[in-house]
């Protein structure tokens, strides 16, 4: 493998039902930063059926170039045709970096593709940098420059590791949604668009989709909320979440929850914050009756302001809270809701 042949930062522009996923634009934004450090360009790889209309949005969010693989076989996500499309794009265009969202799609697609083209893949990254490997010079070992350094939590968020892929290309990572920032949208920005079709020949690996069942819900995406009022087991019952809903209404926020609440069947999985739920970084995060297991903290500790209300003074949530209040949520939350309403009415 001649590593020098591999150039450019590529990102997988995930779309579902011909709508770009948030992670697609986040990866374009992060890819642009990395490309700048390397003196190269960011290319979005758009895979689907009848998806060319999404190019404008990708260009306006910063893609320099877009490779479109458009084929009826790619209408719904299936592992094999998507892996074939992406692997063939990599073989033809030889990127030095390939980023994929760590979503239910990307965490299936990424490993299949990395195994096919024989390169390394680092899962669920929360930070990406360009730097040297080894980070500090080691006698007798070549220090390579301009490497992708991929940082990720491990052991349930207890440790953090930085991984490199010095001898294989592309350097591949899946990236946790909600962590990287989109670039500001530039109306009218243009990208070079190239169409590429490697040809699709269905075989046993093209599994058949018998049925698609969409969850019916009008749930707001907690990853987009500016203010989250999040409840844990300490809320006590599903009915008692009314207190949090009232607070969320008063303050202009959205209700979310911890894993314990989902496991107890009080709230749907879509509202779960944490390692096995969603990563959120709202302006304000109210942690109400949440003890703060390490897996929960991994999903919310990047919030700008964290306000914790918990009766247990030793709860680990207080280790990350900007403002911690030790007390009974049943007394404090309703009073707080009233005070916020009064303050808003006076404005």
């Amino acid at each position: 493998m001649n590593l020098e042949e591999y150039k450019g930062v590529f990102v997988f522009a995930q779309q579902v039902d011909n709508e770009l996923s948030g992670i697609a634009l986040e990866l374009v934004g992060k890819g642009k930063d990395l490309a700048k450090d390397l003196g190269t360009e960011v290319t979005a790889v758009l895979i689907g059926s009848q998806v060319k209309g999404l190019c404008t949005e990708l260009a306006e969010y910063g893609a320099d170039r877009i490779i479109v693989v458009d084929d009826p076989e790619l209408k719904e996500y299936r592992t094999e045709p998507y892996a074939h499309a992406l692997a063939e794009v990599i073989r033809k265009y030889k990127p030095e970096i390939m980023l994929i969202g760590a979503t239910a799609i990307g965490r299936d697609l990424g490993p299949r593709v990395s195994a096919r083209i024989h390169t390394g893949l680092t899962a669920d990254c929360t930070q990406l940098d360009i730097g040297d490997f080894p980070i500090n010079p080691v006698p007798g070992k070549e220090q390579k420059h301009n490497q992708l350094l991929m940082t990720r939590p491990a052991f349930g968020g207890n440790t953090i590791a930085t991984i490199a892929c010095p001898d294989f290309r592309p350097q591949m990572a899946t990236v946790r949604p909600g962590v990287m920032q989109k670039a500001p949208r530039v109306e009218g920005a243009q990208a070079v668009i190239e169409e590429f079709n490697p040809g699709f020949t269905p075989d046993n690996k093209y599994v058949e989709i018998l049925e698609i069942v969409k969850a019916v819900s009008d749930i707001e995406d907690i990853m987009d909320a500016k203010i989250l009022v999040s409840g844990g087991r300490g809320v006590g019952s599903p009915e008692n979440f009314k207190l949090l809903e009232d607070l969320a209404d008063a303050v202009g926020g959205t209700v979310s929850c911890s894993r314990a609440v989902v496991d107890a069947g009080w709230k749907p999985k879509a509202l779960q914050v944490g390692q096995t739920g969603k990563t959120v970084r709202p302006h304000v995060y109210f942690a109400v009756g949440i003890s703060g297991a390490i897996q929960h903290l991994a999903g919310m500790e990047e919030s700008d302001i964290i306000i914790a209300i918990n009766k247990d003074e030793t709860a680990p949530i207080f280790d990350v809270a900007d403002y911690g209040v030790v007390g009974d949520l049943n007394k404090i939350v309703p009073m707080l809701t009233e005070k916020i309403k009064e303050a808003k009415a006076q404005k």
Partner: protein
Amino acid sequence: MKIVVCIKQVPDTKGGVKFNPDGTLDRSAMLAIMNPDDKAGLEAALRLKDQYGAEVTVITMGLPKAEEVLREAMAMGADKGILVTDRVLGGADTWATSQTLAGAIRNLEYDLIITGRQAIDGDTAQVGPQLSEHLNIPVISYAQNIKIDGDSVIVERQYDDRYHVLKAKMPCLITALAELNEPRYMTPGGIFDAYDAEITVWGRANLVDTLDSNLGLKGSPTQIAKASDKVRKGAGEKVVLDPAESVDYIMDKLLTKHVI
């Protein structure tokens, strides 16, 4: 039907993680358990065995001590246990691990391979799909429900806001979620039998169609640049006040930070 289930022995991270003074993980201070997603995968296999009749083989790659999870699996109802262990396999990343498992599984006949979605020590979710690629068979990740239909499996495959009902011809690989089911307990008779059961032990020489350059630390494309205990944002203020004062305290912060 023949089912192979891949399982891994992992440190239990639930009770927190213990570190050695040099910052590396103190595995000896933590309980070693069968990875929860793998246990769900095993339970799914055992239910297929109950329903349709099947031979269930569990396989693990690890240190000799990983034999413990094979015996646990056999006490739950698995028929055969295979331990893949060799010094040259140490330090493997997901590429080298999936290469090793593929090399071992090429010795076996199988209709279905079930792996857990991810292990709680690495959380990568990569080995299952990578293994399926090396064996050139279809993969269905994030399985919620598994049924057999003639020479095919029908599986509910979970996504963020939907699920797909998928049909794949066997042989096929499925990755299971811990939410899939409630694993059964070991039976006293099962424990007794599993204690005496013979475990097959394989080393490097038993791996079929596997290059040395794809094994262990040397065969791993990814390398660790740095590992550290996570640095958390420091704690802020913590107050213990009566409820009315608590509310005033929060209001003061919300107003000075222009939240309201």
